[in-house]
């Protein structure tokens, strides 16, 4: 397989390829549709042939014959390895500790990796009503670690304080020490259009770990609503290889459902 860098690639392709590389050692991934699906599919074809994709709809080991348009699309069921009830999926598979990586999106991310997907403004009379938890609060508490993909990077998306904590980081959970603590590590990685943030300790904070080609550390710090820590060894995000871009465009998302 060619490892030469692609000559041209989109921001989406950069993000998907970065996510795929991080899945090299994951056994099971809990993912929604869109970019996470592409990342898992790419990882499966490159760095991790035995990766298993789990959907909150109850499907484990999907083998769709065409690009799924949702986490409960009929094509993820036909030919899948297993379909279980959502009670078993959330209880035994997820809370039982069988998910290594969960992918989440968010409207807002804070310094410790807590996420807001509920409201902008006040919950009682919100400026914008967002989708809410869905399975997010459950995934954050129980997945081995969580990857977050955000399509914007500015102080509104990375504020000093969230408007609402939908899915709490272990740091925030630790403020309730009388409760049994969640098993998950919380957010380990946030991939944005500017770079990659990482948390290295369960009770630690996010730090800038990689910047995308053409982006400076200062740009990322300015786009972040708190004083963003920077790793000692910040590197440049590896550009997608020509082969990765070919796989994404010619084999994985041939109809450009998510690659735009």
């Amino acid at each position, binding site marked *: 397989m060619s490892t030469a860098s692609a000559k041209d690639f989109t921001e989406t392709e950069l993000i998907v390829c970065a996510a795929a590389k991080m899945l090299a050692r994951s056994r099971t991934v809990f993912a929604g549709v869109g970019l996470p699906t592409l990342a898992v599919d790419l990882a499966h074809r490159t760095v991790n042939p035995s990766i298993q994709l789990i959907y909150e709809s109850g499907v484990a080991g999907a083998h769709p014959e065409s690009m799924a348009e949702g986490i409960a699309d009929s094509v993820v*069921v036909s030919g899948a390895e297993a379909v279980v009830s*959502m009670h078993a999926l959330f209880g035994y598979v997820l809370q039982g500790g069988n998910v290594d990586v969960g992918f989440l999106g968010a409207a807002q991310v804070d310094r410790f990796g*807590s996420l807001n997907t509920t409201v902008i403004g006040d*919950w009682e009379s919100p400026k914008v009503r967002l*989708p809410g938890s869905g399975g997010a609060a459950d995934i954050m508490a*129980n997945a081995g670690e969580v990857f977050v993909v955000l399509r914007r990077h500015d102080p509104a998306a990375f504020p000093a304080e969230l408007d609402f904590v939908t899915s709490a980081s272990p740091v925030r959970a630790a403020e309730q020490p009388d409760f049994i603590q969640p*098993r998950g590590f919380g957010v380990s990685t946030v991939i944005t259009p500017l770079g990659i943030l990482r948390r290295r300790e369960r009770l630690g904070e996010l730090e800038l770990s990689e910047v995308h080609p053409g982006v400076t550390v200062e740009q990322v710090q300015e786009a972040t609503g708190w004083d963003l820590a920077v790793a000692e060894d910040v590197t440049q995000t590896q550009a997608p290889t020509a082969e990765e871009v070919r796989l994404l465009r010619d084999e994985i998302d041939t109809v450009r459902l998510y690659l735009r």
Partner: protein
Amino acid sequence: MHSDTVVSLPEAIERYVEDGATVALEGFSHLIPFAAGHEIIRQGISGLTFCRLTPDLLSDMMIAADCVDRLVCSFFASGSAGSLYEVRRRIESADPRPLAVEEYSHHAMTLRYHAGAARLPFAPIGSFVGSDIPGINPDIRSVVDPYSGKKTYVVPPLNPDVTIIHAQRADRNGNVQIWGITGTQQEAVYAADHVIVTVEEIVDDEVVRSDPNRTLIPAHAVDAVCEVRTGAHPSYVQGSYDRDNAFYREWTAISKDPARLQEWLDVHVRGARDHAEYLESIGHDRLRGLLVDPRPSGVVDYGRRMQPSEGSLK
């Protein structure tokens, strides 16, 4: 079990869904009981507490038709297809009226049905520590685990007056078989006082009894079975027809404009006498485009005893 289990959908709705009732319409993307929801709109039932993990287009429709006062759910959008604008108008600006909301996560909703089905006082859950969700939902409480001495959050049982689901098939007694995504249907059904099941097809007892493990809902849990073909459109039925994804996308524009939304309801729901007329209004060409090619399951063998066993010959 009851001789009158098989009834028409209008009769089932009239018999079991009253103004002000708590009603669950379940089906996770798959098998959403749209035909039943439309019939509730047609009958002008109001004041409902509407329970559903992912409200979906169905809630936008039922709320716009003013059937619903309170929403109990864990997701407020239409999967990958975007916002539900009627829901957003109600919550963001009480337009045209406020909507009460009880908010959970997917696992919490699943556990509420589970506790309801098993008539448990509550169900513990590992989520929510550190989250703001318990702060806006006083029904999420905590208990001290008597083994570790630490606290865990718990959620209360959810016992709908009526749960309505759609399925591939049932027999005339009400044994319901489902394949593909089964969601939270078994729990939501057992949690309810009354249960209505719409099915693509009512089949002979022998069909069901050739594969008893396929029965998700035994007859004793079911009050009414209604044969309603294509009863899940615009959602899908595994093995029969696909999700009308174009419809889901079109909905965004319809839902954004209150006048268009009311007009859509007038033409396709309130203006249709029943589900057959709804399907007419959608168009049979369009529906044919959703059909799927066959992909048969294999056959398994349940076995039949050859003769009375050695023991029983004694």
